[in-house]
Every structure is written in structure tokens, then in C-alpha cells.
């Protein structure tokens, strides 16, 4: 016959405290990202991409409206460790378009990290995958 186990008092306190902790965690969570609606699209040349100099044309918009005069830092990274990231030189072309010049230093999967500050002071970060860069 199984003897019913006595529930420890501390366990009961923990069980009661858990929903409260969850509630507090949700209440204290940061508000929605102020730049959530910022769209960042990428047009890459040459296409298909291969090792060597590359040009990424980035288009920034929000609710269909182009975002001008943003300050952008663009960094190309491989999806694996041990490679020095490729820092891009960024120029604004106007009407929400920006030109980022950088170099693919190795074949494989790349990721473009766009770190930006909009004209109204809001910051955003976008990660744009660039898979399958050919080695030749």
C-alpha cells in the first residue's frame, strides 16, 4: 500500500508564487519594439552572389513610407565562427535607399547585420540572410 506523501510547505508556497511571478514578468516586460514596423529589404549584386566585392542596396520603409536620413552600420558575417566580419561602407542614395559596399571574403552562408538609427532617434537592428555565396 502506498503511503500518501505529505506535501512540503515550501513546495506549496512555490506553487502559489509561480503564477504571480509569471504575471510580474509579463507586466515588467519591455513594451513592443518602437521600430517593429520598420521594413528593411535587400537587393544584392552581383546576383547570384560570389566571393569578391559586393553591393547591397537597402531599402528602408515604414507603413510604405520611405525612411530617409537614417544612420546605418552594416556588417557582413558568415554563419560560422572564426571569420573577421566584413564592414560595409554605407552611402545614402535618397528616397529610403542606401548603398552598402562590402566584400564576401569566403564562399558559404552570409548574414548582413544592419544596425540603424532613424532620423527621429529610434534605433533598430535587422538580420538579413544571404545564403549560398559561391566561392568562385
Amino acid at each position: 500500500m502506498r503511503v500518501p506523501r505529505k506535501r512540503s510547505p515550501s513546495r506549496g508556497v512555490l506553487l502559489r508564487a509561480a503564477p504571480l511571478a509569471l504575471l510580474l514578468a509579463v507586466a515588467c516586460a519591455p513594451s513592443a519594439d518602437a521600430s517593429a514596423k520598420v521594413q528593411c529589404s535587400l537587393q544584392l549584386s552581383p546576383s547570384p552572389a560570389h566571393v569578391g566585392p559586393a553591393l547591397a542596396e537597402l531599402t528602408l520603409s515604414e507603413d510604405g513610407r520611405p525612411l530617409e536620413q537614417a544612420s546605418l552600420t552594416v556588417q557582413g558575417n558568415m554563419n560560422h565562427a572564426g571569420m573577421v566580419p566584413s564592414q560595409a561602407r554605407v552611402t545614402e542614395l535618397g528616397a529610403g535607399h542606401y548603398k552598402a559596399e562590402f566584400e564576401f571574403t569566403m564562399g558559404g552562408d552570409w548574414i548582413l547585420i544592419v544596425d540603424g538609427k532613424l532620423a527621429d532617434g529610434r534605433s533598430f537592428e535587422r538580420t538579413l540572410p544571404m545564403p549560398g555565396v559561391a566561392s568562385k
Partner: protein
Amino acid sequence: MTSAAPARRRRSRGVLEWPLVGALLRWRHSRLLLQVPLFLVALVLVLHGLFGPRLAPMNLATVMVWVHYRGALVLVLLVAGNLFCMGCPMLALRDLARRFVHPRFDWPQALRNKWLSIGMLVGVLFGYELFDWWGDPRATAWLIVAYFGAILAVDLVFKHASFCKFVCPIGQFNFAASTISPLEIRAADARVCETCTTKDCIKGSELSRGCELALFVPEKRGNMDCTFCLDCVHACPHENVALARHEPADDLGLDPHRSGLGRFSKRPDLAALVTVFCFGALLNAFGMVSPVYAVQRWMAGVMHVESEWPVLTALFGVALVVEPLVLLGLACWATRAATGSHESLLTLGVRHAYCLAPLGFGIWIAHYSFHFLTGLLTFVPVLQKALCDLGAPILGQPIWRLGGLPKSAALPIELGLLSLGVIASCVVAWRIAERSASRRTLAAFLPWAALVLLLAGAAVWLFEQPMEMRGTFLQ
């Protein structure tokens, strides 16, 4: 007393007599000095892997494990010995756990060989390719956790160092690689061991436990199965265990009875380990060059599949089973035909396969040192970023331009290391040929030299291919 003093002067304990380092190694808790920092590093890697950035080049887990740990491991094996097994943090945790849980069982007799660990080694190589661990900080962190869990699961049930000797894939890699290391544990003076009645180095004493890997110092030859734990050093009441010079790859050409191992020529599992070690080095390097994707696409087309695992399984089967069987089989057949031997192909293969260990190591170290040297400083900005993310930018803002040697400078180093492996493999092949066919040494040597050169040629071709690392299949 008067006769003992000159005898003590004659025998050398090698590194153990060096100032400072020797005293440190002779200290009973010296191993902890390596284990504790490595445990803390492992803890940081797990935490950053699980909670840090998801991008592999920005996470300490992926950077340190797949670039720095692997590179440092092979370089330390080349210049010193199996120090990473000596400093294994998992053993420290196991020893702590064994204070509370005492293992009761002996490792099963049927598994007292290398077959299971060969499977584990192949499994790790397979998982690395299939799950792209190199590009996944979370998976890398869980891999570290799983490793800690595995050693506890095995060594809290089974006595001695069952995990190290029969399961650990990294350990088997280190054992095979340490055959070329310049240091080994051995008796300082064989005459002292002859008069020893207590055999504390294997049985243990109140000073220390004996060798957990069943290596009896007077009959120990080379580095196979030795984790450099120094238990024998601390247990020996005669201070007769040395950490002394080992001629790299020298003992691979010999076939004495070795404590805890027997004769190499009677161990097909050890020969298979060395073979997988060598062909696995080629396969691992092949996995990150451009042609592998063309081969995978072609195989997927032939097999009419779209998922990666059947293609990888076939690729591993070809590279680690079919190719070695065919190439070693041909070398055995040529040896038999040229020497007029009546021995079986298996016997010849098991005897000669050990000549592939230095070449295998040459390929591994060329490959890993490339990543290590070209990415040497890449951990610095990752560490800077991690500290910035924690709100403690004590090392400043990340300097992402920090890298390492240019690729063009790394290639000659790669080829130099590979050449050393080729030369050592040829020397071992010659010694084995000399031993097994003293009258037709050249005839017995040539097939194996040809095999070594063929595999080395394949390695050179691989190193000259453009690197390409993808995390996606059939792209």
C-alpha cells in the same frame, strides 16, 4: 643509502624535474589547476551559448569550441602531449560526484575495445555536418552539457575510467593523435620497477589511486590510452615515474606487448580507430570546401532524396568504410603479392594500418591550425561584446576587425604540417615493413608509401579548394 643515491641521480624524470613546472606537476592536486579553469570556461561557454547571441561568429560557445579549442588541442598534442585529457573538466565533476555515488559495476567485457568509441567518434563527425553545430551556439552549448551528462552517466555506474577508455570520442581522437606527441609517461628506471612489490602505479595507494585506464607503467609503451592524469606519478612511492621525451610516432612501428592494450598487431579495433582517424580527417576537411556541395547534389539526384541525412550517411559510408576497405585492401594485396606472404589481408591490414596515424594527424592539424591561426583573435571582439551586453564593458567596444594570420600565410604552415605527417607515416611504414618482411622490406613498404602519398595528395587538393561553409542543404 650510499648505493641508492647515485642510482637516483642517474634516472631522469624528465619534465617532472624541471624547475617550477616539475614541482607543480608533482603536486597531488596539480590536475585541478587545469581542470578548474577549464570547467569555468565550459560554464561560460554553455551560458553564452544558451543565452547569448544566436549568430555563431558572435557567440563564445561556437567561436571558442570550433575555432580555438580544436586548434589549441592539436597544437598542444604536437608540442607537448595529451594535456587536454589531463585538464578535462568533466573528470573533475565526475570525481566530485563519485564522492557521493560509488560505481559498482565493471565495464562489460564485450565492450572492452574501441568499437563503441569509434562509433561515437563517427557520430560526432556526422552530427557536426548534419546539425551544423559549427553554426549553432545553442546546439554547441547543449553538446557540452550532454558531454558532461554522458561521463556522469557512464562513470557513476561503471568503475575506473570507463568513459575515457571505451566511450569518449574526443579521448580516442587524443589517444590516436598523441602517438606523435613528444612526451610520454614511462618508468624512469626499469630496474626500480623490477624490485617493486607493491605496484602502486596500477593498484593505487593511500597517496593516490592507480591508473584508471589499466596502464601498468613498467609495461606501458607510448601514449595510446594515456590521459596524462599523473595518478601513477603521485602513487609511485619510489618516485620512479617520468614524464619524459617520446620520439614522435616511434612506437607505432614497433609491436611490443603494451599494458592495457596488448599488441597493436592483434587489435583490429585499434587499427580501425587509426584508419577512421586518418580518413575522418579527409572527410572533415572535405565537408567545408566547395566541391562537397556538387557531390551532395549529385548524390541526392542519384538517390532521389531531398533531405540531407541519407546523402550524408552514404557519403560517410563511402569515405569511412568503402574507401578505406578498398585502399587498405589493395595495399594489403600488393604487400602480399610483393613479399610472397601467406598471411590474411586482415592480418596485414591490422599490422600496417598504424602507419596512417601520423598522416591523419598531419591532416587534422593542418586543417584545425588553419582555422585557429586565421581566426586567432576573433574571440576578443566576441568577449568584448558579451561583456558589453552584460553591462560591463571593461574591455571596451568590440573591435570586429581583429582576426589572425592572413589565409595566404596559413597555407604554407598547413602544407608544412602535412609534410611532417607524410614523412613520419613513411618512416612508420618502413619500420613495420622491416619488422614483418626483413628480406623484402622495400616490397612491403612501397604499397603503404603509395597509399600515404595518395591520401596526402588528396589532402593537398582539399586544402587548395576554395572554402565554402553552408548550413543549408541542396542550395
